[in-house]
């Protein structure tokens, strides 16, 4: 079974703090993703990575950065947390089919971040 784990289920931080969210997958997937999920807005892509040390901006990268030093680990960094970054953060991973097949993304359980 594919397993995607996230470092914390719940996190409370103060405005201005630097926040690290970690994600680890155990299936040797090339691709890893960070989303935030807000009511009525669905999942919005923050950043993704298709290989070690590679990253691409998603739809809402402002205020966030990422790091992928090892294939199994993808970190999301909030440089200076703000109250509008209070949200559910979901990590996902996937492989890229060589010919055809599912592009299924496997999700972690999420981290509920509250910034006060």
């Amino acid at each position, binding site marked *: 079974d594919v397993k*995607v784990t996230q470092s914390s289920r719940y996190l409370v931080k103060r405005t201005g703090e630097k926040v690290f969210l970690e994600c680890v997958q155990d299936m040797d997937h090339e*691709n890893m993703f960070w989303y935030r999920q807000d*009511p*009525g*807005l*669905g*999942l*919005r*892509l923050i950043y*993704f990575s*298709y290989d070690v040390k590679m990253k691409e901006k*998603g739809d809402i990268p402002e205020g966030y950065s990422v790091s992928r030093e090892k294939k199994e680990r993808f970190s999301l960094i909030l440089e200076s947390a703000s109250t509008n970054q209070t949200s559910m953060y*979901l990590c*996902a991973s*996937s492989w*890229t089919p060589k010919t*055809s097949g*599912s*592009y*299924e*993304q496997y*999700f*972690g*359980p*999420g981290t509920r971040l509250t910034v006060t």
Partner: protein
Amino acid sequence: QKEVEQDPGPLSVPEGAIVSLNCTYSNSAFQYFMWYRQYSRKGPELLMYTYSSGNKEDGRFTAQVDKSSKYISLFIRDSQPSDSATYLCAMKFRNGNKLVFGAGTILRVKS
């Protein structure tokens, strides 16, 4: 206008009802269509996956894609309380690995 539109609900139905969940999209270049199910306090899990147009059936679940109308549906027959969850549609272009998600529809099946 969002690329993918989905009514957030909530949709409340009695046990045994047929449920219809829908998404519309604006970009005709989408080629892959998926439905994810998300239980409370969990991450989404893939439920159904369809390439291009047509129908796909898996047990009580049927996914339909109508590319001419830019409209996808998920039908749940004989709905159960355990089907209560948020259902998210997702779409992908032919190239790349990014998914575009709808807002998700909250479904409640009452026993």
